[in-house]
């Protein structure tokens, strides 16, 4: 048998990566800072985002959000109460958002232009594994972790935490009754992503949110958005 080796050296997610590059260029041209929020289901991404959208709006920032879920538009309806434009992406069983979904939903989003926004938040599907492979062209990837999940989450899901630019600990208001070991959680996050910015927050009481807004403001300036 005559066999032949064909060298390819091609990224399997090349199509996604190319689309993401295009999106990144469009975000930059529009001057919008895009954040991709990733966590397990139940971490409190929606509550955290709801508070973020409301407060940023009250400070005069122009914000919008795309929110991914397998089914239902419950999160989009909840977030829309902030007054910001919000669009639901239903993945119908797919465990992550990809660049094509973002592209499609941005294209057909009536009344929302990237150039008219300061921040665009993308709430990913609740999943700590698959979203880490898919670049959405975001400027900042945020990994969220709640005090009810166990301090070793970063060690269990190193890929996601290692690819994040910032980490947010949610539900700090119930840290004590949950027996949350703060020192250990911070140490574990730092083992996986040394030097990462960590925000300890509560969407309920507003704790830690000022630092978060300060970071966003600073990131917009340094990323040239």
């Amino acid at each position, binding site marked *: 048998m005559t066999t032949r080796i064909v060298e*390819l050296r091609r*990224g399997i997610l090349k199509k996604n990566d190319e689309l993401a590059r295009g999106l990144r260029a469009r975000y930059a041209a529009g001057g919008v800072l895009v954040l991709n929020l990733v966590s397990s289901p139940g971490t409190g991404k929606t509550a955290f985002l709801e508070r973020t959208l409301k407060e940023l709006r009250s400070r005069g920032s122009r914000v919008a959000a795309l929110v991914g879920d397998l089914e239902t538009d419950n999160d989009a309806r909840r977030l829309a109460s902030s007054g910001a434009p919000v669009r639901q992406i239903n993945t119908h069983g*797919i465990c992550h958002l990809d660049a094509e979904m973002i592209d499609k939903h941005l294209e057909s989003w009536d009344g929302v232009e990237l150039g008219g926004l300061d921040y665009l938040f993308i709430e990913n599907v609740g999943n700590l594994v698959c979203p880490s492979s898919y670049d959405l062209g975001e400027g900042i990837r945020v990994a969220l972790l709640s005090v009810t999940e166990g301090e070793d989450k970063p060690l269990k899901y190193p890929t996601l935490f*290692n690819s994040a630019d910032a980490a947010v600990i949610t539900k700090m208001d119930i840290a004590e009754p949950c027996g949350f070991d703060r020192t250990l959680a911070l140490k574990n996050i730092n083992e996986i992503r040394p030097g990462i910015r960590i925000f300890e927050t509560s969407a309920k009481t507003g704790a830690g949110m000022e630092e978060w807004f300060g970071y966003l403001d600073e990131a917009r300036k340094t990323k040239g958005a």
Partner: protein
Amino acid sequence: MHELSIVASVVDTVTESLEALPDASKGARVLQVRLRVGVLASVVVESLEFCWGIATEGTSLEGSKLVVKTIPVVMHCAVCDADVKLEGVQSFRCPRCDEPCSDLLQGRELEIESFEIDDEAGLEKAGNEEIGVSG
């Protein structure tokens, strides 16, 4: 569990590349596909293998073997000024000096390295013409 869509994308890419080969090699059967998968690629190799049979059914890749090469994490340690290989992914510290490192050089790969085809038919068709056989 996005391994099935990853495998489907591998099948599509190899099929496209096969069609782009010189005429004589078109329709060749794929014997083996080699992937490079980083430890931090968020992909379970066993799941890729599990999906392979189903995803290749009815294509030129049917019956082919999937070979996955695992790529370890390599970081640049600023203190040692050296590229260092990590033994695991539980601690991103330099194994030499134990200082934290954040400069990742390798370990997120998710790529098709190459594929091998049975080119008998292609060679016969091509006769003595040159078709760039290698390997």
